[in-house]
């Protein structure tokens, strides 16, 4: 798990620090650094697949160039990874690593590297999800979830119990449906079907609403028996009815706070513009990150670091507090 990140001159994140929890919900206007942070994580993943530079070799680089430092949870807290620019490029394309000497340190870096390669980011696309998916494209959910049907069909074949849990959860949340099914479309592709409770008819993915498809994608991740180690989900509330956002939160918590003995926790980074979703974190303000933009510079602030938060929350919902602007994380006018 990544526990802290420090940014220097990375896009709008000129000088920003961020502590991370197992679950993190980012709120803030466009250009406030939310997407830049996710891009940095994806860069980190791709560079983790290549060979790293020892940290001391970064010392000669231009002193004010973009740089992002990552810290990790124990027992890997002595490994520090830095994304940096080695040339005049504005893109961070070098990965420097600092770890304890010897085989132990090498082993720790190998473990961190493994975790970093498990970073995944999602921005669901319901148009892509509505089209039948190639059956062979079933290894893991694509970033736009276009292969949802193939992933779920494969899961039903390999792990029917996990798929049954997912389907039961889906039908409980949306009682108009009584089950999920799949149909071969004949060209090596598979189509997702949702059985209607009344009438016995089944709706194909192209006839399902945007919100229904997004919810299915979120459940696909939450019920994955072997999920990625870190998941970023942009616009987590998109298409979901405000009353069902609690189910979205539950799905994220299922990933980040699994039951004891279940599986390793998945670190979750989600973004939202929904005050209704924010309302659901009243008891966990440490999980909310306000992304603020002042001029061209962006910074991050944990909601729990606001000393007056409890007083502010006494007579106002979090979502309403956010809207007023007193928490920050609002567009400039």
């Amino acid at each position, binding site marked *: 798990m990544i526990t802290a990140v420090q940014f220097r001159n990375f896009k709008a994140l000129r000088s920003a620090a961020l502590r991370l929890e197992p679950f993190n919900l980012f709120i803030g206007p466009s250009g406030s650094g939310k997407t830049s942070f996710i891009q940095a994580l994806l860069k980190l993943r791709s560079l983790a697949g290549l060979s790293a530079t020892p940290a001391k070799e970064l010392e000669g680089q231009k002193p004010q160039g973009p740089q992002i430092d990552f810290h990790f949870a124990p027992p890997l807290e002595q490994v520090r990874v830095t994304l940096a620019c080695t040339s005049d490029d504005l893109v961070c394309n070098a990965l420097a690593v600092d770890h304890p000497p010897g085989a132990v340190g090498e082993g720790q870096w190998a473990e961190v590297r493994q975790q970093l390669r498990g970073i995944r980011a999602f921005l669901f696309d319901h148009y892509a999800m509505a089209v039948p998916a190639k059956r062979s494209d079933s290894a893991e959910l694509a970033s736009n979830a276009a292969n949802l049907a193939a992933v779920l069909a494969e899961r039903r074949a390999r792990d029917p119990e996990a798929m049954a849990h997912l389907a039961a959860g889906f039908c409980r949340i949306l009682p108009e449906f009584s089950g999920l099914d799949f149909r071969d479309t004949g060209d090596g592709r598979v189509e997702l079907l949702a059985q209607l409770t009344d009438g016995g008819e089944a709706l194909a993915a192209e006839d399902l609403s945007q919100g229904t498809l997004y919810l299915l994608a979120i459940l696909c991740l939450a019920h994955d028996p072997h999920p990625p180690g870190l998941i970023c989900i942009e616009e987590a509330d998109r298409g979901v009815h405000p009353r069902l956002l609690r189910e979205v939160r539950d799905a994220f918590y299922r990933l980040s706070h699994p039951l004891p003995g279940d599986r390793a926790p998945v670190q979750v980074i989600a973004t939202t513009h929904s005050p209704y979703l924010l309302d659901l974190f009243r008891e966990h303000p440490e999980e909310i990150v306000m992304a603020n933009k002042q001029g061209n510079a962006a910074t991050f602030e944990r909601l729990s670091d606001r000393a007056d938060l409890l007083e502010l929350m*006494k007579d106002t*919902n979090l979502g309403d507090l956010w809207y007023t602007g007193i928490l920050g994380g609002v567009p400039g006018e």
Partner: protein
Amino acid sequence: MKIALLSESPADEAALRVLVEYVLREPFTQVAPALRARGWPSVEQVLPSVLRHLHFNTDADGLVVVVDSDDSVVHTAEHEAPGYFHPGCRICRLRGVFRRTIKNLPRAHGRDRVLRAVGLCVPAIEAWLLCGRDTSITESAWVEGQASGRPPYSRRELKWRVYGTERPTLSHEMKRAVQEVSRHRGDLRRLENDFPQGFGSLARDLRGWRTALQAGGAPRSTS
């Protein structure tokens, strides 16, 4: 009886359905659709509209409203004095909204007004759910803790005790809520004893409904 329930979550509502039936000692019909508020203060803000809707657009006999006290002032016997109103007490405030809203409504669906039942979970519904399991969890323990500045337990701890996690899923919350309130098997003496204002007020309001309905249309509220 036709009853509407307004609470903060589907889990609270599931527990309330059982408790209301226990108090009334008979099954009731819940007025659809399920009403929901986004916690305090949204309950207070939406209540006038909910009452007008129920009065004019449904044949509901009464509305049950239950909210969490969180850290607010807990209703006491002194608040029951005629004309008394504590601005920091959520029961007093909700009763005030009922009173102001229904005052000038014309008769509709053969009744003067929708009957009122207001309850306050001190500090949260999980305290009610633990009633009878943990004798240290009572309204007076919470009120004393507020006075001394040392709360006897936190909402997070109560959640832990009921759900085994601070982050229960909604379906787990609903299941546990119904399990725990059903434990009372219709005998609410313990709950009324340990939560005399928050739950007691709700039970007393509900018990008054039968008389009000038998009198043919509800009398005006005096409190």
